[in-house]
């Protein structure tokens, strides 16, 4: 609606749109993905198969989708936000009933040609629907209780479904990502203070409830927390992964042990070395320099997104871009915190680097939305 007041004649059309794409972000994404290809080649013991070649193909498909999404005007995406969210929630409900079990959790639906993880999809659609909501909502109503409860429900419903799968990592990401958008949209401080207080109380409840009939988390989740709090307690059992991950990281030193020279990953001491724990291999083989470089690349991506968002007068576009950036940030921050032993192991992949189809496609589509917002910004 607000587009009526934009001067749309300055919006580029046709192939000229390509020139207005935020190319630095594309370059950075490719750099990060390239880093990932190198690592997947290394953890396979110096072979493109089975992981790197598949990942390259997905990245190619993802980039095409990114550009495709970017070409479509941002107002179209705003208009379909609610529908997209509805579909992804329906899919989440569907995995409840028809989902296949992988790695001990119900996470994906086999569509025949690909395995769809609705929880990944939800990560963008939630951002979209919240951005659209706050775009639609007059800003003076933002902090009114009734208008706060509605987005809270929008966030909590899919979060609840994902938690049931159970996928603690994605649930946390949805919850925090959603909350951040509400915060950015201008919801009053007091609400967040209240929620944080309630959250602390909830944590207490979680620990107090352990072992009783109303315990809130599964046993394995409790064990992960225990292990996180003191991995040395159980170095060969539950703490094994964290201990070995820290050994791999630490043994990297300044410049690492060299490409394909990481003994921890090559000799299989590392768990899930091609997915959630790929950062440990990277840190082992390329050292602090390599690991910190990746961190800088991520920060640069976020910075360019934020810069784009702040320069965009459209409220939907701005919130959407910030939401995607926030989700992306949460991804790598949680993953890195997890493998460096700062956070419990919750199963969040390292964005664009970890092997995995859905996550990569969804992220690239999300960045497609960011590009669409950038290309079609009011001038």
């Amino acid at each position, binding site marked *: 609606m607000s587009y009526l007041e934009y001067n749309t004649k300055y919006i580029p059309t046709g192939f000229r749109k390509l020139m207005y794409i935020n190319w630095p972000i594309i370059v950075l994404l490719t750099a990060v993905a390239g880093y990932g290809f190198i690592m997947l080649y290394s953890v396979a013991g110096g072979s493109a198969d089975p992981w790197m070649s598949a990942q390259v193909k997905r990245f190619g498909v993802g980039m095409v989708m990114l550009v495709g999404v970017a070409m479509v005007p941002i107002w179209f995406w705003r208009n379909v936000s609610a529908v997209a969210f509805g579909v992804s929630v329906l899919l989440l409900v569907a995995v409840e009933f028809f989902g296949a079990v992988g790695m001990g959790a119900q996470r994906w639906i086999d569509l025949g040609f690909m395995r769809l993880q609705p929880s990944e999809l939800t990560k963008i659609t939630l951002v979209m629907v919240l951005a659209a909501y706050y775009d639609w909502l007059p800003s003076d109503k933002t902090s009114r209780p009734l208008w706060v409860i509605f987005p809270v429900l929008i966030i909590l419903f899919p979060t609840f479904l994902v938690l049931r799968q159970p996928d603690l990592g994605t649930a946390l990401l949805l919850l925090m990502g959603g909350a951040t958008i509400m915060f950015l949209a201008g919801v009053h401080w007091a609400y967040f203070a209240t929620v944080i207080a309630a959250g602390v109380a909830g944590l207490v409840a979680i620990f107090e409830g352990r072992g009783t009939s109303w315990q809130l988390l599964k046993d394995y989740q409790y064990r992960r927390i225990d292990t996180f709090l003191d991995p040395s307690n159980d170095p060969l059992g539950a703490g094994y992964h964290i201990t070995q991950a820290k*050994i791999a990281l630490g043994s990297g030193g300044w410049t690492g042990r060299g490409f394909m020279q990481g003994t921890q990953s090559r000799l299989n001491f590392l768990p899930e070395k091609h997915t959630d724990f790929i950062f440990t291999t990277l840190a082992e083989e390329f050292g602090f320099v390599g690991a910190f470089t990746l961190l800088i690349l991520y920060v640069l991506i976020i910075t360019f997104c934020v810069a784009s968002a702040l320069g965009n007068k459209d409220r939907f576009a701005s919130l959407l871009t910030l939401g995607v950036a926030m989700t992306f940030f949460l991804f790598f921050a949680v993953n890195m915190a997890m493998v460096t032993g700062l956070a419990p192991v919750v199963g969040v992949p390292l964005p664009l680097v970890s092997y995995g189809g859905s996550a990569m496609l969804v992220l690239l589509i999300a960045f497609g939305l960011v590009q669409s917002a950038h290309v079609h910004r009011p001038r």
Partner: protein
Amino acid sequence: MKRYTKDVDESARRITRRTLVVGAVQLGIVGALGVRMQKLQIEQADQFRLLAEENRINIRLIPPARGLIFDLNGRPIAANEQNYRIVMVREDAGDVGEILERLTKLVPLDPQDLARAMEEMRRRSPFVPVTIADRLTWEDVARVNVNAPALPGITAEVGLSRVYPWGADLGHVVGYVGPVSDYDLSRIDDQDPLLQIPKFQIGKTGAENKLERRLRGSAGTKRIEVNAVGRVMRELDRKEGNSGADVQLTIDARLQSYVQARLDSESAGAVVLDLENGDLRAVASAPSFDPNMFVRGISVANWRDLNENKFRPLAAKAVQGTYPPGSTFKMVTALAALEDGKVTPEETIRCKGWVDVYGTRFHCWKRAGHGNVNLHESLKQSCDSYYYEISQRVGIDKIAAMARKLGLGTRHDLPLSAVAEGLAPDKAWKKRVRDQDWRIGDTVNASIGQGYVLSSPLQLAVMAGRLATGRDITPRLVRAIDGVEEPSGRGEDIGLNENYLRRVRAAMDDVSNNARGTAYRSRINASDMKMAGKTGTSQVRRITAEERRTGVTRNADLPWERRDHALFVSFAPVENPRFAVAVIVEHGGGGSTVAAPIARDIMLQALYDGEPPLDAYPTSDRGRIAEQQRKIRERVPPGSKGQDRA
């Protein structure tokens, strides 16, 4: 509905403000991550690098080759033989059952071993090689190798195993090796990491056991890289260990083999001592056992046979068995009295067949008595009464001291299992051990090597050697280790009156070379090889008054375990003694009839370094001896390998 610009601007400003807050938080988190990485990767890098190395590198020991044992002439007594075994790697095999079935058609497999191997395979990781069959012949291994394509996961490996070419003939001397057990580990104070290797072979008895430290050698190491589940990825480097030292014994394996053959099925022990340097040329105990049985792992049936045999094959009687020395002890008593001046060689003592000592009657073996006997006659005819008399004059303490001087009642330091101390009793001993006062009767009994006196064949051979040479010869079993010769046991002058020693030797000469001597029938006929000796027949029971009355004094009428021990000690040649031989036949009967012929045959073998000519024997014996020699030539000792004994 149109939005006011003011509203849009206000909204954008608010978003910017809030973004800055969120950005600050994000920056803080990124900072925390950076600091964390710096801490792990730079501050604690060394520590984690070490942990990573510990993760991946295992140090494995390479067992060294065990030192070999040779006899005096360089014949192998304990050797290492290549043995072939078949190992299987489960993950390479695929269908384990199918492969094993094919294998069974090629090589004989023990179902028990097979079951054990299957169990082990189930328990261990799929890449760990498990031994399916051990000690296969080269032909079996060749068959397996030819069929290798049809047997995935099966490989033949070569290892070393201990083998004793002389089998039972040297069983008691070399002993045997076996896998180190928890009991061994608890008993011996040995930090050698080799002992931690499963099934590492260490010496269990005999020289293998006593010379263990020298024979074992030192471990080599190899560093290997392993992955998280312990699979070996590659060998990083290796440092070879030192193989054990080779040991040369003083034993002459051929002579030893002869002695074992001559003792045959008797329960007996015999020792041949080289008087030049104290070398033990033969230390034989019969019956013996085949040490190879123990290396392979002895079967329950064989083990029971060895343990339940009343002749005790596992006991090394030559060094470990102690017996009353009987009349062979008389030289000790005589020398004690002579040295003390309590009797002169010429003094005669009347033997009437018995001596009464404070109301107890002690009988001479010759009921009718020997009449007047001096030192010479008393030894030659083995008169007991003479010694009953002189022992009372000199007293037990001097006799015991003389016994120790001549090598009885002391433990000789030899690398053999359970070398016995024997017993040369004196007053202090009885007080200490029995808490009783010494009685004169005890002295009288001890004077003829009965009562408390105990000695082993080894000790008797040493005694004979010291009498023959007048030197305090000490026996040695090891001639050289790693080419370095051990100190000789030749010894120095023992400090006895040479005149008395000559008298005793002359009497011992007559024992076997005078027609009235007790061992005349077992003399050596060759004039330059004549043997001197002393017979002994020691009682293992008291002859009861009842038996005396009813006349059951003949040994043959008694059950085996109550018969007398037969003993003979000797040296030869008389003029220039080179060897001393002691023989004990448990419950064999009379020393002159049973032990003396054996000692004579052994002595001749030693003197001639091989089979002696028949004319060294008394004419009447030659036919029998020829037959005996033929039998021994054809004998193959149990467990021996003919071709390796050259």
